[in-house]
């Protein structure tokens, strides 16, 4: 199919230099659909992570701009934007999925009853019910446990305007947080990776931990699959 005629994902980005390592959602080669990127004015890791409401208007305006430019769906490159989900979804006519946290209800359903979900995030100290509610669920009725990479070298880098890190560093930091969480919660049956940088290491986590694991790219592939003729996109790995 002609790439120009294929539905395009609109991705609202932080002002921080995007991570474009292989497998990164900000690397166009990761996807078999076209992506249009738009940095959101005033959006940085430091103020989007957490609960500062100030930047929501900029996300709404940027989503409207991408819709006018013809994208088929809207997402972001920061899972903490889950708290803007309802506002952005209300502002455009195309489907919107801002955070992989929205995969939690589905993942909670496909594991055995009584088992838990693990959420591995950029910063567990700043991820709260506000984000979960935005993503469509509540900690009150979903059995999830959370760990973050806060304090790690990757975490420090990602807060910088121009993050400098490598796959090995991120693998180490994400696996350390995951292993610690699983050791404390042996009844975890699946993992949701919140941070948009984590798809880079998702396969590593799957292989090391052996549990079903979804990430930001899973969400974005699902989103695009919903608006794309089957000949054009698959959720599954491209051959």
């Amino acid at each position, binding site marked *: 199919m002609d790439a120009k005629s294929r539905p395009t994902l609109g991705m609202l980005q932080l002002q921080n230099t995007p991570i474009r390592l*292989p*497998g990164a959602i900000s*690397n166009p*080669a*990761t*996807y*078999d659909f076209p992506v249009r990127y738009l940095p959101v004015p005033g959006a940085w890791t430091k103020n989007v992570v957490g609960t500062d409401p100030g930047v929501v208007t900029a996300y709404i305006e940027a989503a409207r701009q991408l819709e006018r430019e013809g994208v088929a*769906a809207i997402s972001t490159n920061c899972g903490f934007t889950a708290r803007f*989900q*309802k506002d952005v*979804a*209300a502002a*455009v*006519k195309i*489907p*919107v*999925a801002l955070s992989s946290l*929205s*995969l939690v*209800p*589905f*993942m*909670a*359903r*496909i*594991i*055995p*009853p*009584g088992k838990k979900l693990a959420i591995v995030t950029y910063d567990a100290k700043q991820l709260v019910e506000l984000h979960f509610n935005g*993503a*469509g*669920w509540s900690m009150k009725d979903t059995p999830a446990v959370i760990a973050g990479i806060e304090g790690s070298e990757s975490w420090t880098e990602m807060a910088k305007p121009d993050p400098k890190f490598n796959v090995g560093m991120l693998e180490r930091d994400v696996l350390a947080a995951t292993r610690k969480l699983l050791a404390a919660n042996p009844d975890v049956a*699946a993992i949701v990776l919140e941070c948009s940088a984590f*798809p880079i290491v*998702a*396969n590593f986590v*799957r*292989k090391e931990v052996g549990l*079903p*694991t*979804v*990430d930001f*790219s*899973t969400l974005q*592939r*699902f*989103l695009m*699959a*919903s*608006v*794309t*003729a*089957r*000949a054009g996109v*698959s*959720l*599954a*790995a*491209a*051959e």
Partner: protein
Amino acid sequence: MAARTPGPLAILRLQHKPVPMKGSIADPASFAYDVRYLAVPGAWTENVTGGDRAVLAAYVESARRMVAEGCRAVTTTCGFTSLFQAEVSAAVPAPVAMSSLSLLPLLERLIPPGGRIAIVTFDASRLTEAHCQGAGWSLTTSKVAIAGIEGSESWQEMFKPEPGFTRDMLARDVMTALDGLRAHHADIRAVLLECAFFPIVADDVRARTGLPVVDFLTVGDLLMASTDGTSADAKVAAE
């Protein structure tokens, strides 16, 4: 070939003769990964959509067998088996999604708040709150409108041991049901296709409505994405 976690998707199917049309769940070419089919003893359209719980044990046993033989996730060819979601999921160490109805909580998050999801099903008179709860949500809290193809020519064919519907017949019957819903509800913002035959016409529904559409293939893809790598890994490995 891509290096990938070994193990196909297990598709627990009804006893009816499969209909391997283009885009069908019964056609292995509909998937980007390996699939294995197993006809569940005693499972027919009539009793499974009728809520017969006697067939639950056969679904549990079939799932166990397929996972024991190396399948890495489990789904079915009848969305009404969401009644058995908890029991089958509890029985195997692999993710299980019996029904595309499990996608509802995720899909409803992508659309504008207040928007409605149209569910087109094999038989709306047979689809109950218990099926929705099995899939992880409730008619009391989710804003949906449901229509089935009951009474149609395709519906009649699907009860037969060798269903003889055509693609055009199915497209007509599904569109008739969906058009009826859209005539009554101006706030429909997405479509969920319950029946495992409906992926055959999912692209028609997308083209006709311009709405996001998810179906039984989407749920299989999402299951497998959780257990498999991303496209990035697959592409690298394939080179």
